[in-house]
Structures are given as structure tokens and as C-alpha cells.
């Protein structure tokens, strides 16, 4: 207050300094966002290799990759939904519905039509979610909670609460076969990762999604069609869940109405772990993929050590809270650095 002589020059210098600092902070925190998940990934990998006998066996690696791929594909849709500041709790039930209906349709009409039906179901429920959120202004998590109930009920009704077994064994090659030794679903997961990455980070659509998620009011002022973007994002999330359902049917050959317990939670956890902030406005798809591998490694390790299945709840809940903790820490750290940089 007293000694500092304020001249235009010093203000200018300060401002430039602040800009440089803010830029550095932004770049560093972006690096942390992008790569933060690698640290727990490496730690868990080393622990698993050291402590879990048979972790590096071919069969186990294969099952880790396939399981991770199915969850990752759902996670990509979730990442988009989170990027637009939404959330899709219906994905687990949608994957289940798609999976049992796919099985039924394959038995009735063959594999191609069956796959198409499964994807279509995902798309339809996803679009309904989008319409509920965009046009009825229902908070995303309640709207998708409601459609989760409907989809779960529909899956149970369709399967009569029991299993649907596919007779077409050729279809099972989709998830159990490999190309050059790499499991098919893993290739699909990488392909979809690249596609959604390009969609979110390299196209106008992706920029608009992030704009709406980052600041809805400003995006509206800028003339973006918020509603169309929301419907599109939830539609994509539904399709992703539909793809997962098809893969689950192909992987298991016989499915009931809850093939993967808590899939929606896993998808949220891997997205947040991967560095996608729940505040919206960004999405890190490679991070989601790594997050899925991380989660699948933990599950496989618990299985191999014969730890009862319900410990998965524990691992998942703890992982989710850890991811949230990191997310909160990241945000407060960034705002503190920013505040320090500009004062």
C-alpha cells in the first residue's frame, strides 16, 4: 500500500509476469490431468505382478484386457456425458438390456440383426435420456436414474429373470477371438478411444460439448445449440452402452439381467480417475482407457487371490472416493496456483 510506486510500466510488467505464470500453471496442471492416472496404474501393476501369482499368465492378461475394454467403451460415453456436465447412471442397465435382447435377437434372427438390435436399444435409451435432460430440464442423474429403473425392469422382463443363452457359437468369436494375438474387444476399445478422442478434442462438435460443459450460460450466449449437443452426447453414451452389451453377450455366451454389477459406477470411476473433472468442460479419453485397465487389474488380482466377490464393492467405492479426492485436490490446487500467480 505504501512504498510501491505504481507506474504503467510496472503494471504492464506485472501483468506479463502473471500471464506467463498462469500459462505455466495451466500447462502443468494439464499434464497432471492427462497423465495423473499413470502413477496409480504403474503402482498397481507392480504390486499385482509381485503379489498375485499367475497375474502375468496369458489367460489372465487376456481376461484383464477384455474386461477392461468393455468397461472402457462404456467409460468413453460417460466421459462425454461428464464433459458436458452431465452424468449417465443408466449405462449399466442399458448394457444389460442390450445384452439380453442381443442374445434373444441372435437366436431369432442371426448375429448381424442381433448386434444391430443391441446397438439400437442403446441409442434409443440414450436419446430418451438426452431428451429428458435437454428438453424437460431434469437433472441428468435423476433422469438417468429413472431410465435405469425402466431399462433394468425391461431387461428382467425380457429375460424372465433367468439366463438367455445364444446358440450361435460363431458370434462368440467377436469377444473371444484375437487378431495377431490381440483380443478383439481390446482392438475395438483402442479404436473407439481414438475415435472419441478425435471427436472431443479435434472437432467443432467436441469443442462445443466442452464449451457447454464448462460454462453453459456463456455457451448459450455464444449461440450454441445446447439441447442438440446434450441429446447427441447422451445418444452416444447410450450407443457405447449398447456396444458393451453386445460384447458382454459375445464374451459370456449366456447372459442374465445383471451381467456386470455396478457398471455405471465403474464407468464414472474410471473417467474421474483418468483425469476427467466432474466440473465438466473437459474429457480425457486415453485417461479413461488407462483407468479401465487399472480397475480390471484390481478385479483380476482379487479374483486370483480368491478374495470373495463382494470385496469388489469395497475396491470400487474406495477407488471412486480416491478419484474424487484427487479431482477435488486438483481443482483447489489449480485455483490456489492461479490466485498466487495473479496477486
Amino acid at each position, binding site marked *: 500500500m505504501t512504498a510501491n510506486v505504481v507506474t504503467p510500466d510496472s503494471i504492464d510488467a506485472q501483468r506479463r509476469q502473471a500471464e506467463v505464470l498462469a500459462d505455466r500453471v495451466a500447462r502443468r496442471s494439464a499434464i497432471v490431468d492427462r497423465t495423473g492416472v499413470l502413477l496409480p496404474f504403474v503402482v498397481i501393476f507392480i504390486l499385482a505382478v509381485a503379489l498375485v501369482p499367475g497375474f502375468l499368465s496369458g489367460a489372465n492378461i487376456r481376461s484383464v484386457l477384455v474386461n477392461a475394454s468393455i468397461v472402457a467403451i462404456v467409460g468413453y460415453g460417460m466421459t462425454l456425458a461428464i464433459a458436458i456436465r452431465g452424468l449417465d447412471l443408466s449405462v449399466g442397465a442399458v448394457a444389460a438390456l442390450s445384452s439380453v435382447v442381443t442374445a434373444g435377437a441372435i437366436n431369432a434372427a442371426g448375429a448381424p440383426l442381433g448386434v444391430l438390435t443391441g446397438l439400437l436399444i442403446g441409442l434409443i435409451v440414450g436419446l430418451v435420456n438426452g431428451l429428458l435432460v435437454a428438453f424437460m430440464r431434469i437433472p441428468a442423474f*435423476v433422469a438417468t436414474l429413472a431410465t435405469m429403473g425402466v431399462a433394468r425392469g425391461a431387461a428382467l422382463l425380457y429375460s424372465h429373470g433367468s439366463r438367455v443363452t445364444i446358440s450361435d457359437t460363431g458370434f462368440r468369436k467377436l469377444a473371444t477371438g484375437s487378431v495377431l494375438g490381440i483380443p478383439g474387444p481390446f482392438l475395438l476399445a483402442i479404436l473407439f478411444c481414438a475415435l472419441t478422442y478425435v471427436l472431443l478434442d479435434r472437432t467443432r462438435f467436441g469443442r462445443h460439448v466442452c464449451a457447454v460443459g464448462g460454462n453453459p450460460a456463456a455457451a448459450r450466449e455464444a449461440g450454441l445449440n445446447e439441447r442438440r449437443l446434450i441429446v447427441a452426447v447422451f445418444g452416444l453414451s447410450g450407443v457405447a452402452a449398447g456396444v458393451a452389451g453386445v460384447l458382454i453377450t459375445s464374451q459370456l455366451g449366456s447372459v442374465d439381467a445383471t451381467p456386470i454389477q455396478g457398471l455405471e459406477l465403474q464407468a464414472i470411476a474410471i473417467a474421474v480417475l483418468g483425469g476427467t473433472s466432474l466440473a465438466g468442460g473437459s474429457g480425457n479419453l486415453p485417461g479413461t482407457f488407462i483407468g479401465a485397465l487399472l480397475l480390471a487389474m484390481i478385479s483380476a488380482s482379487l479374483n486370483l487371490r480368491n478374495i470373495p466377490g463382494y470385496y469388489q464393492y469395497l475396491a470400487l*467405492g474406495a477407488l471412486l472416493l480416491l478419484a474424487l479426492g484427487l479431482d477435488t485436490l486438483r481443482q483447489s490446487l489449480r485455483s490456489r496456483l492461479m490466485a498466487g500467480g495473479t496477486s
Partner: protein
Amino acid sequence: MSTVSSDADLQQGKDPSPGLTDPPPGRNSVAPLAGKYALQLFTVVGLVVLCLVQPEFRQPGNLRSVLLQASFSGLSASAMTLLIVAGMFDLSVAGIVGLSAVMVATVMPHTTVGAAVGAALLLGLALGLLNGVVVTKLRFPPFIATFGMLNLYLAAAFIWTAGGTLSIAAVGFLPLATTQILGLPLLFIVMVLGVVACYLILTRTRFGRNLRAIGSSEPASRMAGLPVDGTRITAFALVGLFTAVAGVGLAALLSSASADMSLGFELTVISVAVVGGTSLDGGRGSLLGTFTAAILFSALNNALNLLGVTSYWQYVAIGLVLILALFVAGLQNGRLSFRRS
């Protein structure tokens, strides 16, 4: 300056009796009343129709069972209403039901019924407090954080019971679900008392006013010096306590306890509160609505059962009713416009 004026605002100005959406001004006096009590009207008409159409439905025993079933979701939802009014949310209720039921089943053989019930309620209170601290102090988004807590609670209950079911044989405990007072199930009376207590808390106490203020505008409440975090933590604790009562009641009804005894309970509880007219935007809640919606859902499930419809339809029905209620609420708020705002 702003502190004083906003505090005064809160105390006098906009303090409508909560639960009653402001009727549109003018017109005659019947239409707004019908609009205000549309849910109650619908429920009563629905119950009367069901009684007329279905002979089994109107059996006193069946009606009692409707009331008994309504008391579980009603208890949890009445406290949840307070929490939603404060702009928060708790998805972990199914885990709290499981843990408190397992607690009562575990402790029962070693002590009196009262002590076991007390232990379960304390556990529920503690879990609610934990939720509140995680959400307010660690500043985790409430939906995901309580979703994560749900998994931790379920895991704890599964590990506790080794994935199995604990049966409860205590003679003094089971009457909790079967006792009748004046022909009404004891648990239903407990639920009514809980609803009334929450109503009085919301409308007649400083704490209730704080809940509404915080739900209406958190920044304004902070500026006005209200204890935002403390109020929310208390509301979470109330949800934990009320949900534990439901868990104990459910354990008495089933004479057993397991971790997954109420999977999906959160969907019912949320639906009951929202269908009852409590705004998810916070600041406004209706306990009469919550009470009515609890009975409506219970009657709906009961009627579907009597019709021989499989229980799977109930997921579908609850989801659809929830969407419908949100749609109607959107219409009433005028939020639902198909033009771009």
C-alpha cells in the same frame, strides 16, 4: 451491509409455508387448491378405485400391508426431503439399511432388544454424519460421493455377514413389524411421527429455516453467516437415523438381515420425495407430498402384485412415475419450454 439485509430477508420476506407451491394469483379459490393438492386428490381417488375394483385390495389385512410397506420408504424419504431442501442428496440409503439391519441382527443375541435397536440407530446416525462430512468438508459432489459411500457400506455389510443372511430369532424384536395400535401397524405410526417431526423441523425451527435458505442460495446463506456445513451435516445425519429406523423395521419384518436386502432403495426414496413435489433445485419441500407419495407407491406395488404382475414391472413403473412427476413439475414451474431460453 449485505449480511444484515439478507438475514432480514430470510426472517421476514420470502418465507412462504414450505411444501405449498405458491398458487397463481387471482382466479377462483377452488382451482389453486385442486392444483396444490393434486397428488393427494389423485392418491385418494386411486385408492378408492382400487378398493372398488379389487376385492383383495380392500381387505383390512392388505390395506395394513400397504401402510406397512409405505413406512419404509416414507421414513427415509421424509428426512431425505429435508436434505433435498438443503440442496443435497444421499444415494447411500440402501447401504445404511443393510448395515443397520445387520447391526441389529448381530447385536441382538448379546443384549436386550432396546439396546440392539439403539446400536443400529446410532450406527445409522454415524453413517449419515460420515456422508455429511465427506460431502461438505471434503467438498465432494454429493451424488457421486454418496454413490461411492453406498458401495463402501454395501461392502462392509457383505464382509460383515460373509455374503450371507443373518436370521433374527429374538421374540421381543419381531413384534416391531407386526404390532398394531388402533388397527394401524406400529411402523406406520412411527413413520407418521417421523413425517410430522420433519414437517415441524422444516417449518417451525431455525434449523428448518436455515435448510430452506441454504437450498435457495448457498452463497447468500454463507454471506448471511448461516452455518451452511453444520446444517447440511445435520440433515445428512437425520437421513442416516431415519433410514436406520427403516432398516431395523425391515429386519423385523423379514426376521433376517443381509447386505442386499434393499438394493435399489435409493430409487424409491428419491422418487417418493420428488413425486411428492419436493424441488430438486432445493429450497422447497413438501412433507405432506412425501407422505402421500410413499402411500401411492406402496399401493401401486401392492396392486401390481395382486394383479399377478411380476415384480420386474415395478422397476419400470417406478421409473415411469418418476419421469411423469418430473414432467408435471417442469410444467408447473414453467421451466418446460420448447423454445430456447
